């Protein structure tokens, strides 16, 4: 599948229609996939609905206000899986406050963009992270 824009597109600068190499990479080789047991996880969130096409579960282990470990599982499209994976990369090692500052644009930008009609799939990760941080602070 075509990924990055190239000269063959004839200088086309419309919406990105295909997944970038980074999206394909995070889809085929997602980082931090897994679960955490209740006694390991300090924060947990489950966002989305499989009936609507995607659901994400996110666990964080926190030490000294920092996300020491992060894990996710995802039922979803390539956009959902790759953005979830990238989100965990961006959040790992961050303080909880830094984690809360991560935006959808940060995730999408780190992947080199995502097709316009798939942007909604990328929204779960940031929401899940914020909810997981909130649960860790509770």
């Amino acid at each position: 599948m075509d990924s990055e824009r190239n000269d063959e597109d004839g200088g086309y600068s419309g919406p990105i229609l295909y997944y970038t190499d980074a999206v394909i990479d995070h889809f085929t080789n997602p980082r931090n996939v897994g679960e955490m047991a209740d006694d390991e996880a300090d924060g947990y969130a489950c966002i989305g609905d499989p009936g609507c096409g995607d659901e994400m579960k996110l666990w964080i282990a926190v030490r000294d206000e920092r996300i020491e470990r992060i894990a996710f599982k995802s039922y979803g499209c390539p956009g959902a899986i790759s953005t979830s994976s990238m989100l965990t990369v961006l959040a790992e090692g961050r303080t909880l406050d830094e984690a809360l500052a991560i935006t959808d644009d940060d995730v999408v930008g780190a992947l080199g963009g995502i097709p316009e009609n798939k942007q909604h799939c990328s929204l779960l990760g940031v929401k899940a992270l914020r909810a997981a941080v909130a649960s860790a602070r509770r």
Partner: protein
Amino acid sequence: MERRFVYMDYNATTPLRPEVKAEMIEDLELYANASSLHEAGRKARSRIERSRAAVAALIGAKDPERVVFTSGGSESNNTVFATMFHLGRKGGRKGIVTTKIEHPCVLNAAKWLADEGFPVTFLDVDEYGVVDMDQLRRAVGPETLLVSVMAANNEIGTVQDIRAIAAIAKAAGAYMHTDATQSVGKIPVSVDDWGVDYMTMSCHKLYGPKGIGGLYVREGRPLEPLIRGGHQEHGFRAGTYNNQGIMGFGLAAELAKAELDDYVERIGGLRRRLRDGILAAVPKCRVNGHPERVLPNTLNVSFPGAEGEAILLSLDLEGIRVSTGSACASGSLDPSHVLMATGVGPELAHGSIRFSLGRDSTEEDVDYVVSRIGPIIARLRSMSTVSY
């Protein structure tokens, strides 16, 4: 198995047959307007009429004149619904009866009529995608203007009993239309046997070019042009003849007719091989559509725990081209209206893949897909939140 390129999306469209392509290229030299009276024009026209006869022969229409060339399935379907609009507006019958599993070009045309005040019924289907005949009998009555039911479904392949449906329509004095876009060239189609008044065809589903199709109109049935203008197609469809498209359609139809029996047998065998292979390779998947009354080339499978577009992309990365009923692929949130109508539920509908085989499909293609699908589903399920 070694990586290979496998096209299994023939219901979306088919490649141009080499014979058809060669004929079309040759025909490009004959630029004359088929309406011109000089010799070159007459020659172009006679080629068009030969194509019309070939298309008519494929669908069992005795009089080729009953076939109107259009730009494709969408236009043919819209022409029928536009005709009903004009008839209904003049008074008398207005009822439209169709199904929940039609192609969007019928669904949206029917919704347009509903917006215009026509009473429209969208019939339910059973778990296999078969129209509910009792509901049909109740819905069709003296007020019914048109019954429109697709002959075979593009997503799940379920084939309807058009002859029985047409009989019900006829008994009530309603017109009967069927969208046979996915049926022509794949199963025996006969407008007389079925007893339909209108029938839609599209050429790019039978190894011909895109942008050309046909509408069969039984003698004496009304037809309102969607495109007004010149006298082409007896005034039913204006616009300079699409010579090359029509030539391509004619030859594609001729070849499809000659090869139909072989196609049904060979492709049907490949479908069974694919179905059995997938069922053996992937635990807990389910085949959608009717187990027997189904197109020989169409296999729709739900893979619980995995999302359709994720499966599609994984297959794509292995060189395999398929379609999905997942909403995500289309950017909306609603999964396939066809699968939803069969009651599979949104979760399963999101995780469904349509494999559609065709003339160039081989046993090696099937075996390659079977070899790849197991690990792909296992991987996606291993990271999934959904238990199945």
